[in-house]
């Protein structure tokens, strides 16, 4: 995305060291505070995954392997259910590929920011890319106007990977002693965090149009077919609708042209 003051489509500057250190510290502090909510979300869902895996017959090693190696919540839940129901592995693998296809959009959206990071670093960053990491990192980069690798690690590892895996272990080993996260209202954390982070990314009419179109696609397709497909379609169609809206600069220049036009309609 273009940083503030850059023309639309320009690549963002990449060196966080040229930032005022106090600005960088403030942005990271904000990221950490935003991340606290997602720690609660990842912990709650990780706990439930541990419990689900346990009831599906997973051993602790298997449940932990899922959370470390796959590290993709929705597909882990789906797989646990399918294993319990006796599905064959190929069906589970195909479903996983479909459920996780939305990560392509996240990766594509972050690619312009992360382009100067070393290849091996990007290899690891890719594995840690989740809904939460994308949401936190993209808001953080936009807030700064440039990439901040430390911010990405904080979002991906600190807010998601560590709590998700610790909670999985807790759930699979001792989940029977822990109250249902629904009773505590923790099931609302994830959708609330996603909606709140979407608001953080919405600062113009194009973003509002993209988000609104995404919501409509997700709900309609979710009702008629499948929520996961709805999310992917919403993520693909929403930006197209946003692009159809004139950008703020173009809208203002049209308004200025109209205002400058004399009443007789003839150029002065």
């Amino acid at each position, binding site marked *: 995305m*273009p940083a503030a003051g850059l023309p*639309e489509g*320009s690549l963002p500057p990449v060196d966080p060291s040229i930032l005022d250190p106090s600005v960088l510290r403030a942005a990271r502090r904000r990221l950490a*505070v*935003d991340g606290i*909510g997602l720690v*609660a979300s990842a912990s709650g869902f990780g706990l439930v995954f541990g419990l689900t895996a346990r009831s599906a017959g997973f*051993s602790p*090693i*298997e449940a932990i*392997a899922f959370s470390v190696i*796959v590290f*993709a919540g929705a*597909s882990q839940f789906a797989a646990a259910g399918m294993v319990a129901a006796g599905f064959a*592995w190929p069906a589970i*693998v195909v479903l996983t*590929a479909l459920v*996780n*296809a*939305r*990560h392509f*959009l*996240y990766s*594509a*959206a*972050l*690619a*312009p920011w*992360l382009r100067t990071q070393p*290849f091996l670093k990007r290899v690891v960053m*890719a*594995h840690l*890319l989740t809904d939460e990491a994308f949401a936190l990192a*993209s808001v953080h980069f936009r807030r700064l106007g440039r990439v901040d690798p430390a911010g990405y690690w904080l979002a991906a590892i600190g807010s998601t990977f560590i709590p998700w895996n610790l909670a999985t272990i807790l759930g699979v080993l001792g989940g029977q002693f822990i109250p249902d996260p629904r*009773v*505590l*209202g923790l099931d609302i*954390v*994830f*959708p*609330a965090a*996603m909606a*709140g982070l*979407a*608001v953080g990314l919405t600062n113009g009419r*194009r973003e509002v149009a993209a*988000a*609104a179109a*995404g*919501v409509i696609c997700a709900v309609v397709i*979710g009702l*008629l077919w499948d*929520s996961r497909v*709805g*999310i992917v379609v*919403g*993520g693909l*169609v*929403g930006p197209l609708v*946003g692009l159809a809206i004139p950008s703020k600069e173009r809208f203002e220049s049209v308004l200025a042209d109209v205002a400058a036009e004399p009443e007789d309609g003839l150029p002065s």
Partner: protein
Amino acid sequence: MSTGLVGLAVLMALVTYPSRAIPLLAPGFDRLPPRALEYLRLVGPAVLASIAASQIFVTPATSGSGGSFHIGIEWLAVAACVVSVAWRRNLLLGIVLAVAIVAGARALGLAG
């Protein structure tokens, strides 16, 4: 202790990784035309709003495809979070508010 499903986890990771990695690792994704970059900039709000909406508006069917439209306290909770973030620019506050609304409503028997 059984480790048989570790193989399944590896296979699932193998089909997940390309969607996470290809744009980040493939050369050229960083030199897209401005229109494409603008499209990608809009992916964030669109996909995050889609996720939130599908979570609060749609209850997946237990069997078969499709789902049912969900009406519940979750709407109010997420709306409160959205308003709070837009007003105070504080996500944590919004989340705490959402959790308090849902947990409070359930504790009072006003929501399931």
